């Protein structure tokens, strides 16, 4: 029962969030969802392009969507919410013919349309399904208290993203619960972590991410599972800055949800890639799983 979907890792998947990429690939393979790489994929247009020029950024996205179309596929999955936003925005904007004409002018190969972009989370929910996920579990994440953090753009704007509740999303909660984890109700699921303010205004990130970590501790979470490379970086890499700014002492592991899935599916350590994270989740993980035994 192998379903196929084009796979768009995004630039961070090759660099800062390599472990998100490898764990995603391994998890999907284990669950029978075949991710087909897009040959010669390029920037999704989310970086500086979209703040400068909507046509240029849509053209960058549309180039990739057209490559998917050339593969004979109708949908692409991406782990990164920023890529997702941009791919979906391009699709939305190209519904207007005059806009699309301008986009096509920039492309060698005009975009034929009709390629849907979804998150890996959505693909796992809709194409694999909770039942399959549940029955594939080898090491249940029993006893592990996880707060699921979706970030602010994963489901927003709701008309564009068209998946899950935009204020109280449940897809990740449901998947990790199916893997046996004890999902704690996390009230700040869709609050902003500070995003790219990390560079110009690290104080803003320290405050916003600090709030998230504080709330996660407050609900008794062992770790915060995330689905966005940028959120991950702010909460994990900048945790030291947060602590220094707020006089706190957080040591909260922030793994990608796919990494936790990989643990439950008994996937090899290199693919899980916990060693790439700043706060190592392994001590907390083994303690929680051991207590549960």
């Amino acid at each position, binding site marked *: 029962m192998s379903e196929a979907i084009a796979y768009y890792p995004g630039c961070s998947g090759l660099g800062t969030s390599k472990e998100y990429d490898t764990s995603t690939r391994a998890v999907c393979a284990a669950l029978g969802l075949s991710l087909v790489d897009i040959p010669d994929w390029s920037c999704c247009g989310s970086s500086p392009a979209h703040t400068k020029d909507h046509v240029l950024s849509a053209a960058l996205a549309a180039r990739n969507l057209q490559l998917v179309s050339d593969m004979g596929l109708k949908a692409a999955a991406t782990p990164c919410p920023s890529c997702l936003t941009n791919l979906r925005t391009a699709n939305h904007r190209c519904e207007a013919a005059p806009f699309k004409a301008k986009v096509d002018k920039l492309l060698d190969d005009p975009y034929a349309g009709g390629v849907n972009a979804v998150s890996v989370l959505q693909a796992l929910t809709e194409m694999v399904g909770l039942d399959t996920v549940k029955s594939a579990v080898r090491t249940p994440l029993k006893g592990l208290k996880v707060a699921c953090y979706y970030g602010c753009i994963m489901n927003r704007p709701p008309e564009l993203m068209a998946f899950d509740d*935009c*204020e*109280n999303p449940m897809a990740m909660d449901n998947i990790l619960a199916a893997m046996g984890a004890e999902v704690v*109700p996390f*009230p*700040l699921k869709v*609050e902003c972590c500070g995003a790219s303010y990390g560079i110009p205004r690290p104080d803003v990130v320290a405050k916003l991410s600090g709030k998230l970590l504080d*709330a996660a501790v*407050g609900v008794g979470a062992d770790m915060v599972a995330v689905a966005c490379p940028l959120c991950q970086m702010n909460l994990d890499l900048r945790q030291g800055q947060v602590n220094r700014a707020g006089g706190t002492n957080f040591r909260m592991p922030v793994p990608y949800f796919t990494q936790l899935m990989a643990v439950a599916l008994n996937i090899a350590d290199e693919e899980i890639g916990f060693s790439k994270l700043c706060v190592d989740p392994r001590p907390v993980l083994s303690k929680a799983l051991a207590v549960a035994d």
Partner: protein
Amino acid sequence: MRIGVFVCHCGSNIEGTVDTATVAKASLDFPEVVYATDTMYACSEPGQDGIIQAIKDKNLTGVVVASCTPRMHEPTFRRAVERAGLNRFMFEMANIREHVSWIGRDREANTNKSVDLVRIAVEKLRRDAPLIPSKFSVNKRVMVIGGGVAGIQAALDCADGGLEVVLVERESSIGGKMAKLDKTFPTVDCSSCILGPKMVDVAQHPNITLHAYSEVDSIGGYVGNFQVQVKKRATYVDWELCTGCGACMEKCPSKKNPDAFNEKIGPCTSINIPFPQAIPKKAVIDPTTCRQFVKGKCGVCAKVCPTGAIKYDMTDEIVTEDVGAIVAATGYDLFDISKVTEYGGGRYPDVITGLQYERLLSASGPTGGHIKRPSDGKEPKNIVFIQCVGSRDKSLDRPYCSGFCCMYTAKQTILTKDHIPDSQSYVFYMDIRSPGKMYDEFTRRAMEEYGARYIRGRVAMVYPKGDKMIVRGADTLAGTQVEIEADLVVLAAGAEAAKGAPQLAEKLRISYDKYGFFMESHPKLKPVETNTAGVYLAGSCQGPKDIPQSVGQGSAAAAKVLALFSKDMLESDPQISRVDIKRCVGCGKCIMTCPFKAIKEVEFRGQKKAEVIETVCQGCGICTSTCPQGAIQLSHFTDNQILAEVNALCQS
């Protein structure tokens, strides 16, 4: 035929952009027009006298008035020609105001178009025939559906007026939302003290029959002669025997069920009387939780009931009530707060609705009138009220204002201070809507005397932190973000149409808007009438209303019923469809298409034929365009007349 044409100036409304004298002159060239004139105000007394005089002087047999929309003045002019001795259907109107002078500035084009409209009206009039309404008798009983304060008022006024009243209430007691309120704005008087006596009057009035725990199953008939099937749902308690002693409730072992009367913030037993002042004060068993039904064993209530009223084998019962008029007073329901996921209603126990808060304030509520928050029973000190939840919000498809929540929120802040003097209330609002006698003064009192802190702005989210609820929002007057640590959050949930309202509207054959509120016949001039003769509206089933407005409408609807019943015989509108029996092939297409079920199948010399029930037909004409034989014709709007109008227009 001798036709007279009267072209109205409507002051300068028409004359400003239409040359009425020219229109009148041109009319003289139309067939059978023997007299034409312009007139200043056709509807005024001198205007009508002019028409009557001309009919007499010139021996007119038909009249065209070219003026405004027939919706307003067609009845006026019909009465005028009737006073002059003509049949009132020998009259046509050409709308040269709404359809001409108000929508175009070009005087010449407007004049020409007016001439065309008069030409059309003349051609229709030439094919009009006198119509005589038939008379039928009226059953002077009235049914009121819904026993909230609006329905109670309508029922009492009708009954005091000498009518027999049948009151149908879906719940086991009448009272509606008002019975759940603690105190009422703007006087802060106790709700059950002012409603209770009215409820008792209903119970004791010799003219009122009450069917509680009942619903309307189907409705047949027409104004003056409706037949309503009422489904009396099984209560599993024989109400003839039940004395309301409550012994069963004390002993029932199934005690932890969500209490609907207390808006599910308190528990109740499976056998229950919703509140002490309930009318009727009778017990009902909920078979979805009762152990006798769920597990097949218990029977405790049957053992303890001193009158042996418990009947586990009771079934629903249908009774038929014949009435001449119906008042719909089914009220409203609350917007489901769990749809606003950012506020966490339904997820966090300390985020509640305004109606739940009323139950916490009420001495007969689950906390005995002490404000205790649902999560841990602690007395809250900081209470945040959020207004317009599920109102004035296009993204939730609720663009309308619910009207009463600004006021009840102000009331609740006052009551909060009375209950807990060292508390602080905060109110997030968009703007304060408090028109009404003593209303704005009331909201000011909440702020100035009771110290409620009003913050203009929306709340972005509510989330728990420790044992507090963090309310984060904007203060748009100060231009800042605010965060309040609240112990309890009360959402002023908006009003929605009552559950099942569209289905009931269809049974009543009345219109409803896209939100399910019933439609009045005219938004200004016929607020309690509907487009179905004999069916009236009262209270918030027509749109959110507070108690004074609902009561006013209850009385208004009763006055309409009393006026209707002041006659022994009613006249039916003769502008209805009739079947030409020679042409009808009995295919039954009209029967299927008629939205009012006004056509029935009959046998005529061994052949199937359609027949229109005069009193039910509303004259919509849908059947006439369905009949493949052209056998069914709408009087006063026959195919011939419509084609003649089209011809007149095309040949001009």
